[in-house]
Every structure is written in C-alpha cells, then in structure tokens.
C-alpha cells in the first residue's frame, strides 16, 4: 500500500525530510507510527501526538487506504 507521510516541527527535524511516499503494510496510523518511530528513532510517544489523514483529524485506528496522506501532529504551541 502506498502511503504519503508529511512531517512537521520536531518530527520533520528527526526524519530529516518534509514528505515521503512509502510502501507499508500498516493497516492503521497506530501501526504506521510504530513502524516509523522504530525506523527513525522518533522520540515522541504516540500518546503525545494527534493524527490527520487526508488533511483532517482521524483516529489512530482508522483503517488506511492506498494513496492516503498521513500527518502525525506533534504537541501544538500556537499563540
């Protein structure tokens, strides 16, 4: 399954790139984050993140589809 991941803030720094399209067997954002965190040594636990699929908030257990764009959202700090 082709998935596009876009990174922001600390995750972008830790991944070293803005966006990537990968082939992944992950069925949910939760599985995908576990895989990526291990691969790239992300320091933020998933409990500190929110997730967006196709530019809207989603659940960690939302089933992913081929072609989805996923964003893991680090703790926000606007204002």
């Amino acid at each position, binding site marked *: 399954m082709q998935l596009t991941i*876009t990174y*922001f*803030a*600390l995750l972008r*720094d830790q991944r070293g790139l803005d966006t990537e399209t990968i082939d992944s067997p992950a069925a949910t954002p939760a599985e995908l984050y576990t895989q990526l965190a291990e691969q790239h040594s992300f*320091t*933020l636990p998933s409990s*500190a993140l*929110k997730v*967006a699929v196709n*530019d*809207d*908030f989603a659940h960690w257990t939302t089933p992913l589809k081929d072609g989805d764009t996923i*964003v893991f*959202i*680090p*703790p*926000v*700090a*606007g*204002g």
Partner: protein
Amino acid sequence: MHSPTFSMSSTPLEPEVLKKELLDSHAGALATFEGWVRNHNEGQPVDQLEYSSYPQLAEKEGQRIVAEALERFEIDAAIAQHRVGLLPIGGIAVWVGVSAAHRGAAFDACRYIIEEIKSRVPIWKKEYYSTGVTDWVNCHQET
C-alpha cells in the same frame, strides 16, 4: 452575522486592519487579544521565535473554532489571525477580535477562541535562545 474568519499570515499582523473588518454600527463592544513574542520562556532568554503550521488543517480547524464561537456566544463577528515564520521579540504572534452588542459575550468568545487555538490548531513554535540552542516548545524529549 459575518462568516467565520481564521487565517494564517506570513507577514506581520495588522490589528487596525483586522479591527476595521469587525466595525459594525450594531456592535457596542469589542474584545481583543494579542499574543506577543516574549523575551524569555521558563527563565531562558529568547532572541526570536519561529512559528510553522500544517496549513491545510490549521486553517480548517481555526475556522471551525471561530464558527463554534459564533454559535455559542451572542456575538456579531469574530476574526482570528495567526502569524507563521520568523518573529522578533515584541512581534505579534496571534490576534483575536470579537464584536458584540454586550461586553460579556465579547470577552467570553474572545477567550474561547484563543484557548481553543492554543490547544487545537496545528501550529508549532521553535524558540531560538541567546545561547544558540533552539527548541520546539512542548516537544521536550526525555533523552
């Protein structure tokens, strides 16, 4: 009632311009909030600050917040704008303005909008300390 308005801006915010959009001969009260870049955070001297956002979702979520405020409070209009990019000390990071017939609703809605922006809108803040170190606020690592 005006349409909900939330936007991100990569150029300096202009409170006077935003305020004019709220001016309405019906309204009697205007409550505003401005967030400025501080010269310190948790005791560390800060030189400048960089805001970045997830633009597609930030605008969408910000507009939802303003729409919620228009629904929950007896207000005439509300505008919120958040800066992205590199800001100097004293720069305006965020501006919220709410006009209403009565002041209680204007204050309540203004506060609601800024609280929700801070907790829900995907915007991140990177601080540049005088020591040369930088840090993503709220992303402290355990290591």
